[in-house]
C-alpha cells in the first residue's frame, strides 16, 4: 500500500482532536473539583484555560478546511474530516459548559455550603466517563461502544430530574440557600447538556465508521 500525503495529515488531525478532547475532559474534571472542594482558584484556572481550547478548535477547523480543499478526500477519508469538523465544536461547547460550571462554583464557594446532592455526583461521574469513552470510541471507530454510550445518557437524564426536584425542595425549605441552590440547578443543567453533546459525538463515530446517520432516529440505531 502506497504512502499517501493525506495519511500524515489525517494522523495530525486525529492527534489534534485527541488533544482537544483531553483538554475538554480536564476542564470538566477540574470544574467539578473546584465545586466539590470549594476551590475558587481552580475554577478561575478553568476559565483562563478556556482560551486555549478555543484556539485548539480554530486550529482544527483550519486544518479540516485545508485538507478538504487541497486533498479532496473521498469515502472514509472524507467522512473522517467531516466528523472531525463536526465533533470539534461539540468538544468546544462541552468545555464551555465546564467553564459555566466553574463560574457557578465561584458564586457557590462564596456562599454557605449546601448539603451534597448525590444525583449531581452521579451526573458528573457519568458525564466524565461518557466523555472519555466517547473519545476513545471515536479514535478506535468503535460503533458498538458508541451505541452503548448513547444509551447511558438516560442515567444522566434521570439523575437530572431527581437533582432538579431535590434542589427545588431545598430552596423551598430554606430560602437562604436560594443563590447556591439555583447555581447548582445550573450546574445540573450543564451536566445534562454535556451528556447530550457526548451523544452527538457517538453519533458522529457511527457516521464515520458506517456512513450511517443515526441522529434523530428514535430506536434501532
Amino acid at each position, binding site marked *: *500500500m*502506497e504512502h*499517501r500525503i*493525506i495519511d500524515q495529515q489525517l494522523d495530525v488531525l486525529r492527534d489534534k482532536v485527541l488533544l482537544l478532547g483531553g483538554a475538554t475532559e480536564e476542564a470538566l474534571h477540574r470544574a467539578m473539583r473546584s465545586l466539590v472542594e470549594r476551590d475558587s482558584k481552580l475554577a478561575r484556572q478553568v476559565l483562563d484555560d478556556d482560551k486555549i481550547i478555543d484556539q485548539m478548535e480554530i486550529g482544527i477547523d483550519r486544518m479540516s478546511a485545508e485538507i478538504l480543499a487541497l486533498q*479532496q*478526500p*473521498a*469515502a*472514509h*477519508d*472524507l*467522512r473522517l474530516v467531516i466528523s472531525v469538523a463536526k465533533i470539534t465544536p461539540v468538544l468546544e461547547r462541552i468545555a464551555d459548559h465546564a467553564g459555566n460550571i466553574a463560574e457557578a462554583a465561584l458564586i457557590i464557594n462564596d456562599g454557605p455550603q449546601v448539603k451534597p446532592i448525590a444525583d449531581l455526583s452521579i451526573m458528573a461521574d457519568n458525564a466524565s466517563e461518557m466523555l472519555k469513552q466517547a473519545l476513545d470510541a471515536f479514535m478506535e471507530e468503535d460503533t458498538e461502544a458508541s451505541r452503548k454510550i448513547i444509551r447511558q445518557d438516560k442515567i444522566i437524564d434521570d439523575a437530572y430530574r431527581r437533582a432538579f426536584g431535590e434542589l427545588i425542595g431545598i430552596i423551598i425549605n430554606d430560602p437562604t440557600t436560594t443563590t447556591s441552590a439555583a447555581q447548582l440547578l445550573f450546574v445540573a443543567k450543564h451536566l445534562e447538556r454535556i451528556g447530550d453533546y457526548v451523544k452527538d459525538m457517538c453519533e458522529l463515530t457511527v457516521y464515520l465508521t458506517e*456512513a450511517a446517520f443515526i441522529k434523530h432516529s428514535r430506536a434501532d440505531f
Partner: protein
Amino acid sequence: MSKISVSNLDFYYGKAQALHAISLEIPQNEVVAFIGPSGCGKSTFLRTLNRMNDTIPGTRVEGEVLIDGNDINEQKTDVVALRRKVGMVFQKSNPFPKSIFDNVSYGIQINQIHKGKADLQGRVEKALRNAALWDEVKDRLNTSAFGLSGGQQQRLCIARALAVEPEIVLMDEPASALDPAATQKIEELVVELKRDYTIIIVTHNMQQAARVSDRTAFFMLGKLVEYNRTDKMFTNPDEKLTEDYITGRFG
C-alpha cells in the same frame, strides 16, 4: 426500461480477454462515469457500446448489449445507424481541416438528415448552441476550425457529435487535455446535455466523475468492481477495492 442494458459481456483482443462478464444497466437521461486505472478496460467497454471496436482486427465480443431493447451485436444491426444514435467524443479534439460550419454540417449532410439549406443552417446552429459554442463562433463560422482554442475545438467535436441527433453520447476523457476553465465548461455542458441525452464519460479525474455523474462504474483488470450511485460511491462505497482506488491507495 434501461436505455442501455449490458449482460455478461466478454471482450477479447485476439486471445487476450479484456473484459470479463460485465453487466450493468444505464438509465436514460443520466450521466454515468467510468473510472479505473489505465488498462482496466473502461475505454474498451465504452467502445463496445457503439461497436467502435469493430474497427480493430481480431477483436471478439460475447454477451449482450441492448440499446432500447435491441441487441447491437446482432448481424442485422446497421452499424452506421448505431453510431449515429450513439455518438462519440474523444480525448483529443479532432476537428476536420475545414471550417467550423463544415465540421458540424458534415455528419448532417452525409446522413442526409436535413431538408434544404435553411434547415441545415438551423441544425448547425442548434448543435453549436447545445455545445455551448454558438456565441463564441457565430461570427466566424466559415473560418478554419483549427483557429479555435483547445477547449473550443473539443466543444466543436461535441457539437459535431450532437448534430446527427444521437440519443447517447460516449465521451472518452473529453477534458483531459484542457485547462481548468475549459474543463469546467465541458463539465457544465455534460450536466446540461443530460436533459436530452444519455451520457457516458470515461475519466481519470475522480473529482470530475464526482461532479458530473449520477452513477459511477469502477473497473479494474477488465472487471466491473462496483457500479453505484455517485454520491454513495464517493462517500461510502460498497467495495473495499473501490475505497482504496478513490482514496488514492493504489493506481
